């Protein structure tokens, strides 16, 4: 396959991906194609393999078989987590994970795009522009007042936002966001949907979520995952009318 000289056709391409845990197929012949600049929502019952899919994309888990391709040509199965992050894929975990004993500001500074080499980090000096960028993101996620507080003292929702902020400041091309609205109030959920829609203007974003109101607010293409493969794909109102989708959700 020769590299196309035109713009990237698909930012993320999964084909025939399978992952087995002790004989149990968590991901089963999964195919997925995300276009540059696309916002894609992924839904599916518990255990459908949504998080495992993200593990595979970000190099945490190696698939048994299948293609995982970033920007048409980069085979992600050949890279590890740090590599993949530096290639331009950012990830928010299902359980919010921020660095508890650093301040909100330090968390963002740490995630800030830049050189990740040991010695460069040792002698790192923040530039004016970078400091400005951190403050910008701080404002975007609505936490300027908590700037110097330790991340462990944030509320659950604030941690989620901080982690989203860390994702953005990492300047990835593709964001994988696992259940950003979990544990949030209705108001926070809607704010988060707005935030992600905003981000998707200049990033490709894949969001996993259970909250249907949230998905509706995203107003994007939806992929339904079930038992490790795609069950249906399309707009939310169409997908919701799909008999197999209804069975999967009601049959439980």
């Amino acid at each position, binding site marked *: 396959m020769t590299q196309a000289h035109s713009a990237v056709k698909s930012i993320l391409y999964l084909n025939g991906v399978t992952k087995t845990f002790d004989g149990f197929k968590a991901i089963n012949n999964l195919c997925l194609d995300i276009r540059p600049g696309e916002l894609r929502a992924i839904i599916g019952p518990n255990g459908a393999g949504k998080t495992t899919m993200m593990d595979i994309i970000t190099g945490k888990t190696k698939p048994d078989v299948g293609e995982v391709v970033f920007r048409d040509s980069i085979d992600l199965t050949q890279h590890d987590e*740090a590599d993949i992050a530096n290639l331009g894929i950012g990830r928010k975990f299902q359980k919010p994970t*921020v*660095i*508890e*004993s650093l301040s909100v500001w330090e968390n963002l500074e740490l995630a800030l795009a830049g050189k*990740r080499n040991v010695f460069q980090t040792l002698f*790192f000096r923040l530039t004016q522009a970078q400091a400005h960028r951190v403050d910008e993101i701080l404002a975007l996620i609505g936490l300027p007042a908590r700037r110097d507080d330790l991340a462990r003292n944030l509320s659950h929702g604030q941690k989620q936002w901080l982690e989203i902020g*860390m994702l953005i400041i990492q300047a990835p091309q593709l964001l994988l966001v696992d259940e950003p609205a979990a544990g949030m109030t209705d108001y926070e959920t809607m704010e988060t949907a707005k935030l992600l829609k905003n981000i998707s203007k200049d990033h490709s974003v894949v969001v996993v979520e259970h909250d249907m109101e949230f998905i509706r607010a995203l107003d994007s293409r939806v992929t339904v995952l079930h038992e490790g493969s795609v069950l249906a794909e399309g707009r939310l109102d169409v997908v919701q009318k799909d008999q197999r989708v209804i069975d999967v959700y009601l049959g439980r």
Partner: protein
Amino acid sequence: MRDTSVLQRLLLQDKPGKILLGCLCGLVVLVPIFNLLVPADSFFHVPTYVVTLLGKYLCFAILALALDLIWGYCGILSLGQGAFFALGGYAMGMYLMRQIGDRGVYGNANLPDFMVFLNWQELPWYWTGFDHFGFAVLMAVLVPGVLAFVFGWLAFRSRVTGVYLSIITQALTYALMLAFFRNDMGFGGNNGLTDFKEILGCDLQSSTTRVVLFVVTVITLALSYFLCKYITISKLGRVLVSIRDAESRTRFMGYRVEHYKLLVFVISAVLAGIAGALYVPQIGIINPSEFNPLNSIEIVIWVAIGGRGTLYGAVLGALLVNYGKTYFTGGIFAEFWLFILGALFIVTTIYLPRGVVGVADNWLALRRQKRLLLAAAPVEQV
């Protein structure tokens, strides 16, 4: 310009660091005066054995700093730091052995006594170069550093963490202990290296030499503190904390966790090696028992009691516990020392997770609050 601002950051915002530096400056000035200039019969005279004892504590403080850097900040609980200390000690011990020359019991100018005793005809190849002080110092740094590099590279690359890492570091020091016990290793076997006479042509028994060694130790401790401090306040320090708190998250941010761990692990081993090299000329002996896994566990206890992840807490812990050890093992409690130490460790980990430093912090915060309260409500006081 940049250097001044670094120094400023190192000193100005670090109150405990300033206190520590002040104490060390005090020691550097006062100990030589009270040992060398004040007459021996004076009440104020500091006997040479006390100077040596203090020097020993300070070597342990360097060792504790080294452990705090990797454990307190990066979560690497090494139970084998004693191995790097002992290796540094052996490097220095080998130089001191060569300095004995023909003044050994057998009067053999070419071979140390224990080799003559073993009927060896010539010096093993790995003893070459140890006639030179500079070479020995280089080895005291290089051997622990290279060992830590190889060991760390294997362990961190395979993502060995937590208890498993602790166990293999214990195994490392245990294996080295067994190896150094063997006579045919050529390091003096069971008895180790001892009966030293001179260092750089100066009599090791003289008070002046002892005082100089002490001063060098104090300076090394101060420099080690600043090195560790610089690392921990740099962005690299925050990456270390990030690895400690959420290793996987750090990877997904694009940091190569194994490189960071490897760097601090090597730095820590080198500091431990230097501490060992300073320890041996003051104590006058190095033997395989320094590799005892228990020693490495003791270092962890010093740091835990002092207060992990603060650097000065590690120094304080090393001094306090070792003073306690000297005090108790000299008296009727000698037999119970290990029990006391164990109990202290359990009590601190359960009740004082931030060690002595944490207690002091809380107490200061409480007092500040009280003062604020009093200042805010002077009228209601009658």
